[in-house]
């Protein structure tokens, strides 16, 4: 009982100490950075721009009232390094930048070609940054421009690429980590997803998921894979969840469209002779037919098998063509071949790892795609053909 007054005083002082801290920043003193971009200026400095939410405008635009006023704004700054550029940008901001919600980062093509090494460190060093980040290369354009393009479906346009990435079956949010992880693996080269800015027939500019950008060991952009090629590459690495493809079936004189899900991939490396490597790639997937422009009645097993074999054959050719292109044209291992070799033949790996750049272009690759067509949809024989034209 006699301790009660002391206890009360102590409790009260607890309240005083624990409620306030030095780090309190009111929400009205923060500005939320949703996407940012980095570009190379003519004079060699870095231009950093960011898209911020303008909270007061969000309500307005959802009411549909005032219109015209965008719920975001873009601010930029230039400097020798990213931080210096951000410092210049902060001189124009009345609030403190909060990056907890930033999901997209654009690199302009020029900067990507010049090399992005100097930009990478701060993404992990500063605890205010999130590692779950998608970094995009803007093909043929600047990152700033990509920030400026409005997008009709999303209130804040920088949400768009993330959603596109998810909608087309990619692994959104992991590109930054994948980038630093592959670049820290000996012999492997990093990649980033690519967007470009296109004007459709309606003359409005929009963002498009273009494919994949390939970097070399110096973090310099060396080339692009288009959307389908990029998807094949992701398939080899099992980082894809959805892919739709149309292949021409020569024996039936028409094309068949397939949606592939449930992706599997197996890499089997073997060392044939002295320093000669062979890589057997086996890709598997589950196919749904969604389009049939041949006159084949797919309810017949032999017809389905015909389509399946033909599609697999064509796809194998296309995947091999893509790999050969990367091998011969870019000479960068973006398929994890060196890791497969390390897993399967560690002894050979330790002998060859130093000279991987010379070895990689000469690896003998075989590809076998094995998509199992499980569903043919709701229609058996194609409806657009007359009864007599349908091939049973």
């Amino acid at each position, binding site marked *: 009982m006699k301790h009660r007054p002391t206890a009360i005083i102590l409790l009260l002082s607890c309240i005083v100490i624990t409620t306030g801290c030095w*780090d309190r920043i009111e929400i009205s003193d923060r500005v939320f950075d949703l996407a940012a971009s980095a570009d190379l200026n003519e004079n060699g400095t870095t231009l950093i721009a960011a898209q911020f939410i303008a909270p007061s405008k969000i309500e307005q635009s959802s009411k549909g009232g005032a219109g015209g006023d965008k719920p975001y704004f873009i601010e930029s700054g230039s400097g020798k390094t990213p931080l210096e550029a951000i410092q210049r940008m902060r001189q124009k901001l009345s609030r403190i930048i909060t990056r907890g919600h930033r999901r997209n980062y654009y690199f302009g093509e020029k900067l990507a070609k010049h090399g992005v090494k100097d930009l990478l460190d701060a993404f992990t060093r500063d605890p205010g940054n999130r590692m*779950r980040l998608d970094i995009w290369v803007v093909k043929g354009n600047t990152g700033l421009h990509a920030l400026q393009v409005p997008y009709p479906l999303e209130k804040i346009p920088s949400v768009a690429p993330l959603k596109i990435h998810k909608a087309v079956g990619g692994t959104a*949010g992991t590109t930054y*980590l994948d980038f630093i*992880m592959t670049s*820290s*693996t000996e012999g492997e080269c990093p990649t980033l997803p690519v967007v470009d800015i296109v004007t459709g027939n309606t003359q409005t500019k929009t963002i498009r998921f273009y494919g994949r950008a390939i970097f070399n060991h110096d973090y310099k952009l060396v080339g692009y894979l288009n959307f389908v090629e990029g998807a094949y590459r992701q398939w080899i690495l099992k980082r894809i969840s959805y892919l739709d493809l149309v292949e021409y079936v020569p024996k039936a004189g028409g094309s068949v469209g397939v949606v592939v899900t449930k992706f599997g991939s197996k890499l089997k490396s073997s060392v044939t002779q002295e320093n000669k490597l062979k890589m057997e790639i086996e890709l598997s997937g589950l196919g749904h037919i969604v389009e049939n422009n041949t006159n084949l009645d797919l309810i017949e097993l032999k017809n389905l098998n015909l389509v399946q074999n033909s599609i697999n054959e064509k796809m194998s050719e296309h995947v091999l063509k893509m790999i050969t292109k990367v091998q011969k044209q870019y000479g960068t291992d973006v398929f994890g071949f060196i*890791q497969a070799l*390390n897993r399967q033949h*560690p002894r050979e790996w330790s002998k060859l790892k130093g000279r991987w750049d010379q070895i990689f272009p000469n690896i003998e690759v075989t590809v076998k795609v094995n998509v199992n067509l499980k569903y043919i949809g709701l229609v058996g024989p194609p409806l657009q053909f007359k009864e007599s034209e349908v091939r049973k």
Partner: protein
Amino acid sequence: MKISGYQLFWMVFTMAFGMTALFTIPWPVALAKQDAWISMIAASLISLFTTFVAVKLSLLYPGQSFVQYSQLILGKWLGKTILVSYFLMWLSMTGIILREYADFVFLALFSTTPLWTIILIMLGASVYVTYSGGVRSIGRCSEIIGPICVIGSILIIVFSVNDWDWLRLLPVYANTGFVPIMKGSTLPASFLGESFMVVMFIPFMLKSNRAQISSLLGVLFASVAALAMTLVVILIFGPNIPARLIYPLYSAVTYISVMEFIQNVDVLAVLLWIISIFIKLSLYLFITSYGTAQFFHIKKWKNAIYLIAPMAFIISLLPRNFNIEMSYTKFWLAVIYPINIIGIPLLLWIVGTIRKKHMQNSELTPTSQ
């Protein structure tokens, strides 16, 4: 002041797990790459051995603390000299743990709050729990806090499952070899081996025969949990990145995103860190104060806290920057750990056993005559 075997288990677990999981992972990963988990297994075996020695040593003289029986075993003066090295270790550890705690919280949560306030609040909590009931209240605290620690680490495992890639663990052993794996195990082994401090608690055990199983199980569970965290880190970040991160587990937790819904759960890692440090710090505070009191024959051991707590506070403010703490960790690993945790206890155990045998013999001889 009495503690049960169950409480001892949670004390050892909570104390050993948090810091090992958050602080030591870069070391084995830097040396043993994707085989760091083998290093962790080796570390747990080593620490089980050191704990076994510590418990056996204490059980030679039941009811007496390390401070008392080391003087019995080695004689008054040699014993006292050795104890000085232990006091230096315990005191500096208390300070450094405080500082390491504060640095992490500073980096992860509060970057404009002055460091001394963060330190002072934690120290205040530890002093309170130690002063109010000594080892008994620490034991009760860990009984409640320990399971929270377990739940936290299970949540980390569950939330991160969809970011795992089992291929990142391959190839096993082929890239590294025996020496790097064993070298990698030293730092985690030394952190788990801090369970040596049970030598000060066993005298408080209700049933001292439960001491061995409780402390060994505590170390074992802490090692398994730390092993799981190491695996999580490697499965998410691969074999190269974690070695360069300072708190890889924290980075892994910040990376968690379950269906775009459960995100930014950094607080899980901070929680593990804070509660584990709280227990560890209170235990160090207790053994340092209690040991000092026994050493100088101070009647009221609680008075020693008034001396130890300010000293720990000052020590925690001494390091100029993070790198100096890292050099303390290196010193701890290279000098303190092999001498104070492995060497001296082993020596004491051997000498003590021989002495006991000798004493028994000399006791037996008169009766037989």
